[in-house]
Every structure is written in C-alpha cells, then in structure tokens.
C-alpha cells in the first residue's frame, strides 16, 4: 500500500522539524516547507492526501495559501488542516471560510494530533 502523503507548511523551523519527525515515525510520507511559495511549488508537482498549514508566515499567510490551494488544479479536493498558535474564534471562522476542513491550535498533544490526522485521512 502506498504511504499517505502529507505537506506541512510552517515558518517556524522547530515546529517543522518536530512535526516532520512525528509524522514520519507514524509512516507518513512528509514534505516540510517553510513558506507559501515553496508550498505552491510542491503542490504543483503532485497530489497530497493532507495539507497542514500555519497561519502567520511571511509573504503569504495561511489563509491566502488555503484559498490558492482551493483554486489549484492538482490539490483542490485535498483536506486542509490549520495548525496555528492562534486560537480565537475569529481565526477559526476565517480558516473555515478560506476552505479548510479542520482548525487545530498549538500546542496540541502529539497523540491527539495523530488521531485527528488518521481520522481525516479516513
């Protein structure tokens, strides 16, 4: 069986490394990138099973990136999960309106994160 492919976008190097390690350990195929433009490049090259986005990033923020993904040809239908240090209701709504499937707040326990990812991948 093919491993599920996950794209992680976060400008915080530490978060990127940590989540990458966690997901790889579970057997997922992970692409960690640290900016919106890198993410778009990756998304143009292939299809992913799940995309995880941070919100606050330089140049292009997570909301904008999410809207762009929903207009793309390749990954239009891929579930998008926000993973952000923001946790106010207005951010959650903005995330849903941008087209996300789920909104998670940092810090989230690794066990919970893994179970949610596995639920979303179905």
């Amino acid at each position, binding site marked *: 069986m093919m491993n599920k492919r996950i794209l992680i976008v976060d400008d*915080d190097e*530490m*978060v990127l*490394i*940590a*989540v990458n*390690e*966690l997901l790889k*350990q579970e057997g997922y195929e992970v692409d960690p990138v640290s900016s919106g433009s890198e993410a778009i490049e990756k998304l143009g090259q292939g299809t992913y099973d799940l995309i995880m986005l941070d919100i606050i990033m330089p140049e292009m923020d997570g909301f904008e990136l999410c809207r762009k993904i929903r207009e793309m040809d390749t990954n239009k239908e891929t*579930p998008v999960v926000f993973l952000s*240090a*923001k*946790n*106010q*209701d*207005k951010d*959650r*709504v903005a995330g*849903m*309106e941008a087209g996300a*499937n*789920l*909104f998670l*707040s*940092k*810090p*989230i*326990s*690794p*066990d919970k*994160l893994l179970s949610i990812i596995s639920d*979303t991948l179905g």
Partner: protein
Amino acid sequence: MIIPPFKNLKIRAKLVSVTLFMVMISLLTVSFLSTSQFGKALRNSAEEDLEHLVTNLYSMCKLQYDMMNEMALSSLNVAIKIFYQEEGDIQAIRDHKLHFDVPLQGKEETQAVTAPLLKKGDLILYKNTSLIDRIARIAGVNCAIFQRTDNDGLIEVATNEKQSVGAYFDRENTIAKSIISGRIFLGNSYNESDKRDIVAYKPIKDGNGGIVGAFSVTVKEHQASSLRDILKNIKVGKTGYAYIMDSNGNLKIHPVKEGDNIRDTKDSSGFKYIDAMIIEALNRGDGFVSTIRYPWINPELGEKKPRQKMSKYVYFEPWDLIISAGTYEEEIYKSLYTTKRFIFIIVMLSIILVFFLTVSISKVLTGPIRELTEITTKMVEGDLSQRVTVYSSDEIGVLGTSFNRMIGQIQHYTSNLERMVEERTRELKVSREKYRDLSLFLNSILDSATEYGIIVFDYHGSIMEFTKGAEKIFGWKKEDVVNKQNIDITILNNDQARDVLSDIAKHTRSAGVYELEMTRVRERGEKFPALTTVTAMIDPSGATTGFVEIVRDISRRKNLEKQLRETKEFLENIMQSSVDGIITTDMKGKITYVNKALEDMTGISRDKLLNQHVSTIYVRGILQAREVMAFLKESKRAENYEMGIKRKDGKKIAISTSLFMLRDEDGKDIGTAGIFKDITEQKILEYKLKAARARLIETSKMRALGELVAGVAHEINNPLMASKTLLHVILNNIPEDWPERDRLELINKCNDRIEKIVEHLRGFSRQTDSDFQKININTPIENALMLSGQHLLSNNIIVHKKLSQNLPEINGSVNQLEQVFLNLITNAKDAMDEIGDKKELIVSSYLDREETNPMVIVSIRDTGPGIPEKYLHKVFEPFFTTKVVGKGTGLGLSLCFGIIENHGGRIEIVNKKSRGAEFRVLIPVMNKELARRSETETSTGKKQNAYKGIEITPQSMHGDKKGEI
C-alpha cells in the same frame, strides 16, 4: 279581473278547460319524475365507481406519506444522537457574528442577517462538511445544520453531499417558529422542486438549554414511479383515465402529457375548467372528493361537436397533489338520453294542444269587458252622455247597470260663493312740554367750572342742563343733549341694566347726597373712570323731581395706580420664578423676604422663614451670619461665595451666593439681599469626574498589561509545540528501560505545566465573551457559595448571605462571574486564616440607582486584617501576590478585573475602618429600558436627593471656599 270572464262561461265550457289544465299538470309531473329518477340511479352508480377510484389513489399517497414521515423521524433521532456524541458542549459565541445575505421573500433584493458563531466543543459548525458528511453516512439520509439568527430566523450553515448552504427561514416561517419554541418540525420540503420530500427538524440546545439552531434530515420520495404504473393501467368506461397534477396545474403523472402545465386548458365553451378544479380542490381541502362536468371536443379523434365529460378529483394536501379520474358522460348516460327525448316530444305536443284550447275560450269571454273599457275612456275625456249596453245578467251585466247610474249623479252639482270686508284706521298722538326754570346767571357760574361737569336731569333721566365742564368731559355739545338725550348715554349698558338710576334715587332720598365711583362713557364710546356726586331736586310737596350730578374724570389717577401695581407684580414674578434662592434681611439679620426657590432649597415654608434670624439656615449659624454682615459692611458686595446652608431635615447643601446691601433713597443701608445657587450636583459631578479619571488610568494600564501577556503567551506556543512533539518522538524511540526516561517524563510534565500557565494567561487577556446572556447576578453568587461552602465551613467561617431579590437582569457569563466570586471568596478565606476568632464572610447583592446608569452591586466582605494601604493600587496587577510561592499565581485578581471589565463593570476595594476588607463588584443593569424603568420608579426620590440625599463632607466645602465671609 281574471276570474269573472271564466265565471261567465257556460258550465260545460268551464268543465272542459279545468280538465285540460289538470291533465297538463299531471303529464308534466309524471314525465319529469320518471326521467330524473332513472337518471339519478344511473348517475349514482357511475359516479360511485369514479369516486372509489380517486379515493383509493388518495389512500395510496397517504400511506406512502405516513411511511416517509415515520422514516424521517427515526432518521432524525439517529442523526441527532450521533451529533450529540461529538465531544464538547454546544455554545453560541454571541460576540463573534457571522454575516449572511439572504434573499427577501419574493423579491430580487437581499437582506443582511447575523448569527452568533456556533461551536460544538472546539468544532466550528459553520461550513463544517466533514462532521455532517460523517453523520449523514451513518444515518443514511441527507442532513443539515441550521443556526438560529439574531432575528430568530434559521439559516442553513452546513450540509452533506457538498450541497449549497444558506437556505433561510425568517421568524414568521412555520419551521422557524416550531424550532424557536422548542418543538420538532415534520413536514414537506421547503424546496419547490422536491416538494414531496419529507423533512424533519429538531432544535439544537446549548449547555444552558437555550435553542441555538436546528438539525434537519431529508427523506427523498422515490416511489412515484410505482404510483405511475398503477395509474397508467386504470381505465374508466371506454375512454376515461386517471391522472395527478399539483396545485399549479403541472401534470405529475399522466398517460401521455406528463410534465405539461394544463392550468390554462379550456373546455369547448372556453371555460378554464382545470383552473376551476384547482380552486375548488384547494377550497374543500384534503380528502374531499369533488365533481366537475364540462363539454369537450377531442380534435385528435376528428370530433366536431362537444361531448359532456365528468371528472372526480380529490386533493392530497401534504404533497399538494390533485388526483383526478374522468370519462365522457354519454358513455354512462346513453339510454337515459333516448328516454328523455321521447318524453320531451310527448310533453311538447300536449302543451301546444292545451295552449290553443285556452286561446279560443278566452276570446269568447273578453268581448263585453272591452266595451266597458272604451266607454270609461270617453267619460274621462268629458263626454257624460255615453251609456253601456247590457248584454247579460251575470256579474258583468250588473256592473254595466251600476255604471250607467253613477254617470247621471255626477251631472247634478254646481255653486258659487263671494264676500268682502273693509276696515278703517285711526291715529292718536299726544305730546307734552316741560317747564324749565333755571336762570342764565346760575348757568354761567356752572359753566365756569371746567374740571367738573355738572348735569341736571329729571326723574326719568332726561337731560335738562349740561355745563361746559360736562361738555369737556363727555364730548357732547350742550345743544345736542339738553331736552334731546337721556342721561343713559353716559352710562354703561351694564349699569343701565341693573338700574343705576333708581339706585341713585334710593340713596339720595335717604342721605340727600350720594357719592360713587363708576365707569362712564364719552360721546365716542370711550370708557373712563369717574367720581360722581349726586343730589336730589325736591319740589315743595317733597317729591323728587330730578337730580344734579357733579362728575370728575379720575382716569389719570387710576392709570398711575395700575402701573405701580403691575411693576410690583412683575418684579415679584421674576423673583418667584427664579431657580436660584433669593432672600433679604433687615439690618439686624431678620428675614424680610424669601422666594419659592429658597423655600424648596431649605424645605421650610415662607411663613416659617419670615422674621426668623438668617443664621438659622446657615450651617455655621450665628458665626457665619456675623461674618457675612461684617464683610458686606466693608465691601458692600460679594459674588460667588461658596458656603453651606442646612435644610429643615438637617441635610447640608453647598451653595454659591451673591450678596449685596439694600439702601433707601438717601443711600442709607436698610438691609441685605442674597442670591443662593445650589451647587450640590456640581460638587458631586466634580467628585465623580475625579474618580472616573482615576479608574480610566487604572483600566488602560491593565489593558496594556493584558495585551503584553497575550502576546507573550502566543509566542510561547510555537516552541512549546515543538518541544512537546519532539519529546513524544524521543519517548517513542527509546527502549522502555532507558535510564533517562524518568527525566524526559519530567520534562514532559514541565511542558504540561507551561501549557497550563499559558492557557491561564490567555484567559486573563481574553477579549471575547463566549457565553454572555441575560442572567440574574444571584445565580453565579449562589454557585460560588455552593462550591466553596464546605471549605468555608471547615475553616470555621460563618457566612452571612444577603441577596436582594427582584434585581434587574444583567448581560453576562455565569461561568466567568462564578470564577470571579469564587476567587474573591477564596481570597477572603485566605485573609482570615491568621485571625483566631470572629471569622465572618458577608456576601450581599443590591441595586444602586445613584449611578448615571443603575448598577447591580455584589459586596464580599471579610473580617480579616484588611489590605495594607500600600498594596491597594497593586492588587489587580498580574503576578502580584502576598501569598507564599506556590500557593497563588498572582493572576486571580487580575483575571477578575479583566472579566468584570468585559462585563462593563468595575471592582472597588474598601478597607473597613473596624476590620476586614470589602470587595465591591459593580455591573451595569442590562439595557436602557430597565435603566429607565428603575429611574422612573425612584424619580421622586431622586429629586429630593438634590437637597438631602448627598452628604457634603465638611472638608470638601471648606477646602473649596475662596474667602472667609
């Protein structure tokens, strides 16, 4: 006139006509009854067949509908159960508004509506397809979530199968009404194209039982095809069939024309019979079978003539369907038509026969009557010579004889009458001359008195003498009045009416002279006040023959008096209506005048104030009165002096006063005057302004701190996330017996603690109010007391609870306020730890109407040592604590401060002089409506407050004083 010619017939002729008539009646009756009975029987059996057919089709629809309803309800219960199993409470975030544009009913425009954000635990329900997809998959029906909008409508925010959302029901909609009142709705789909689908809605409630939305399921109607097969096989008579349409005339099931709209179809007479059927069916309602008959030409069969058709139909309301079956009537009635035609011909022939018989008989009868009519017409024209020929001895013969006799009598009467009367007229006129005996000498003396007018008039008032002075006063010329006019011309009509002359006569007879002031009239009608002296002229026999009147014009004097009076009233009015108190005293300090405002200000009536010494109303009594007098004697005038006066009830008011000396014409001091302006309100405002400014500084300081804390908390989350995740990876990778595992677990615990602190900090700085609603402040107080009750008891603390009932509601969060009160109660408990005896906690709530907006106040008081003065301004700052390390975070009170500020209120600390500290939480009453209500309730009390309700402390009064007076 109809019966006599008939009576005049010979007996045989009469008999013949009566018989014919009777025959005709019975013939018609029998033929009519037989055809109608036969027709009715035939019709009934055919109609019953049709009726059974449509009734059966109706029952089929109903059965299917009931099954779908049951299915919808059970699916809804399954779906809702799954929905509630999701983690977390349902809550509506009233501060976060979702905005929607919904189409207005039947219009192009849209309307903007808002709804709070709805959450289940951390999940946002708005556009949440993953949750609803899952529920729909398990329940096996289409599901949707609706939210209650702020205007009590319902808006669709999530649905499965990626269908579009945004369907909106306003508050008048039946579905919205059911849901908002907490009932399940079961019915047809709102969607026009899926009208036969069944939908079921159930209210969604939040943690407090408030209805925040609805969950809905839709059951699709798939079985129309089976109904269609049955319908297509139905034949009525030779050519009839059954079909189903909706109330707009769209054919839902039809042998050939399915999908067409036939509402405007006309029968062969041009009548829109389908339209009539629809109207009738809707009028009669669900389940009633109706019948319609109409002429119809079927061009497809090459018909030229219309044939009558009959249809039976019934309305199935739940799905808005009209079920109809029909056929040609002639297929039922063929034999009836033949019978009818035969009977019709026989009856027509009989009627024609009877008609001819009647005509010939009447001709014989009407001859003599026509002659009588002609004679009468000639008589009316004046010809009385004509007579009627009498032919027979029956009633008509008798009539002719009497008629001839009457004409003779009319020629008998004529006569005439004439009369004249005349009268004469007479005249009698008597006049009398009066004698006059006054000398020219006397006249000249009288004329020289020009300031006085002298008038002589007789007993009846006729003027006999009129001097120059009188001419000047009254404007009349002597020659125009003497012997020509009556004294009445100088007297008001009113006075004439009450007979002033006889009044004068009475007085002069008894006293000789009568002096009076009265209003008189000049030649031009001008009125003026006059002083008049009247003496009577008496002849030797003692009878009064006339009067001499001396008149003086006193209008100038009267005018002066009036002006003086008006000026005085004008000044008095100004002083009385002044809002400032005005007071005067004599040189000894006795009050000589006070106005209304001063009475109100002191609460003492004018009668009681007058002649009192002015020092009785001064706060500092005689001492102050002496100071005022001494100051005035020196500088004559003082402006805007602030001092205190006291009311009848002992309350003190701050006033600003202007004082000056009163002087007489010679410039000699005769007294003092003062104008008192009540500045109590002003003083209170100044005090409040100062307090508000201090609060503002405090609040902005706290807000700045809050933002800083929130920023820090947010920044920590990223590295914390990384740390936790990496640790998790490491713990997974190392063997179970790794020597450092315990230490790594410890780091994990540290991370958890950091997370808790950050969460707490976020709570402190949170700006949103997640669960604000109308609440009674006593609810969170009771909750907090219940939670801490056992703890307080075990610490030997006696709790006094004084909660005011009937408090107006506030807008707030029960949970957050409960946290505040719990925190304050815990602080109070901790404060009393060190004291040995009399540990008491007093918790009270009450309404404070003194504020500009009424406030609900909760006071939590302890009997501990109180808060040291130096800490009073620091206790609300984050991380400030006096407790030992580890016992408190120092965030409790700052959290309380933030929460209460979010509620639009504030916290005050009062150190009790006796013992202990009091925390007062003030929260504004919910809305302006309530505020207004409680204001009117106390409006009387409020007005009095201006004088007695507010205490002015001696310091504040003396401190602001500008100079000693």
